[in-house]
């Protein structure tokens, strides 16, 4: 069963990067719902419009966990505008591909990231 995943997916699943919570996060975004079986939260710390720290918490399958992990790795150090442009295909490509049926899981990772950025921008306006 595990062979439907690339080595890269398995690496990020078994050794996820940036797991956890940022207590004093500048922005946080949660997407997914218990019905579909994947929920993720992404926390960001921002300085000079750049993501200087990022962490995630994910409840879900291996694809969901690996997508969250690699997303945090890709966007760490990037500007918010750059991070906003990350797509689910970028995430899947970085992972060396995902089974078609698992693409929605990589979607969640970029969605959660965008929600976190929006959250940050909203808070900043105030």
């Amino acid at each position, binding site marked *: *069963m*595990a062979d439907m995943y690339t080595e890269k997916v*398995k690496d990020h*699943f*078994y050794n*996820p990067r940036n*797991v956890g919570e940022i207590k004093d996060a500048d922005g946080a975004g*949660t997407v997914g719902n*218990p*019905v*579909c*079986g*994947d*929920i*993720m*939260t992404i926390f960001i710390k921002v300085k000079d419009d750049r993501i200087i720290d990022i962490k995630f*918490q*994910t*409840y*879900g*399958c*291996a*694809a*969901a*966990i690996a997508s969250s992990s690699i997303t945090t790795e890709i966007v760490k150090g990037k500007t918010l505008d750059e991070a906003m442009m990350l797509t689910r295909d970028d995430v899947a490509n970085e992972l060396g591909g995902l089974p078609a*049926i*698992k693409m*929605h*899981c990589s979607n969640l990772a970029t969605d959660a990231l965008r929600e976190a950025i929006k959250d940050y921008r909203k808070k900043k306006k105030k």
Partner: protein
Amino acid sequence: MKRIYMDHGASTPVDKEVIDEMIPYFDKYFGNPSSIHSFGREAFDAVEESRSKVADILNADADEIIFTSGGTESDNLGIKGAAYLNKDKIGGKGYHIITSSIEHPAVLATCRHLEKQGFNVKYLPVDKYGIIRIKDLEEAISKDTFLITIMYANNEIGTIEPINEIGRIARKHDVLFHTDAVQAICKTPIDVGESNVDLLSVSAHKIYGPKGVGALYIRNGVKIYPLAHGGGHEKGLRSSTYNTPGIVGLGKACELGKTRLKEDMAHLKNLRDKLIKDILKIEESYLNGHPEKRLVNNAHFRFTAIEGESLNMMLDEKGIASATGSACSSKKLQASHVLMAIGLKPEEAHGSLRLTLGRKNTEEDVSYVASVLPDIVERLRKMSPLWNR
């Protein structure tokens, strides 16, 4: 790395004795069992001997057994075969089927197909353990009902249905009773006479036999319509040249299963109970299915705040083969219909883990699984936004 197989509900290894019995039928006795010559007769004799062995484990007669390509075909043949034959009796029996909401897809999809053909199907609910209520069954029976199809034991949560009571009711109302015994056979004694079963499905690969072969028990006197028309094999009910090696394998698997039944059951029950006891020590872990009325080899759990496919993969990394009913692991991205039917919430169903034991499993295997699982659950919970402790 040590590998431990605890997914016998999915498939089993073919027993060495079964393989030995099958081998000569690939080349030495390769003849077509329908041929008149000596090559054919050798193969024919083997097929008939296997028929007796399959009949034996069900307490049936040999001429009540039809060989098929597996559990799925047996379910299709039993249900559609009965339906197509009963269809014409307008105004009488012939349009209503009763089944349960926790059947294997081989039964459920067949019933849905028949609904499209104009049959009415009642899907009985189950209680929190996965058991149908006899009262519901009796209430569902109408003058149009011609078939009840309810599984002997569930493939996911291992719950054993009240087969004898269902059989008694079916007989009382003169309704055919089909049961999918694919998971039950060789794990519990089966007696089609005592249980008033009319049609029963068997698959070889769940009982240490080969894949792609099975059988349908058809009570003497019960008529069904064939699905595969052709040369008229199996009393015209299932045409196609006999899969002699497969049939020989199924026969041997049944023979072994029958002689070993007591021993196997005691062994599996011992391991299962130890597994359940050890794993339920994990915080917020629960057993799915009935505590007693369950297959001797089935242990089915759920853990709060984690997802089953991740759990299967973490166990796989430790060499342990397991299964789940989570949505992410299914092709339809829906949580298992069985777990929904017993009243679990989707997030509870996603966190499920099925461990199904087999003959070769040992107490050490159980101890190993019980020793690695708590860490895995903790690792996944640490990642989970649903676990705030």
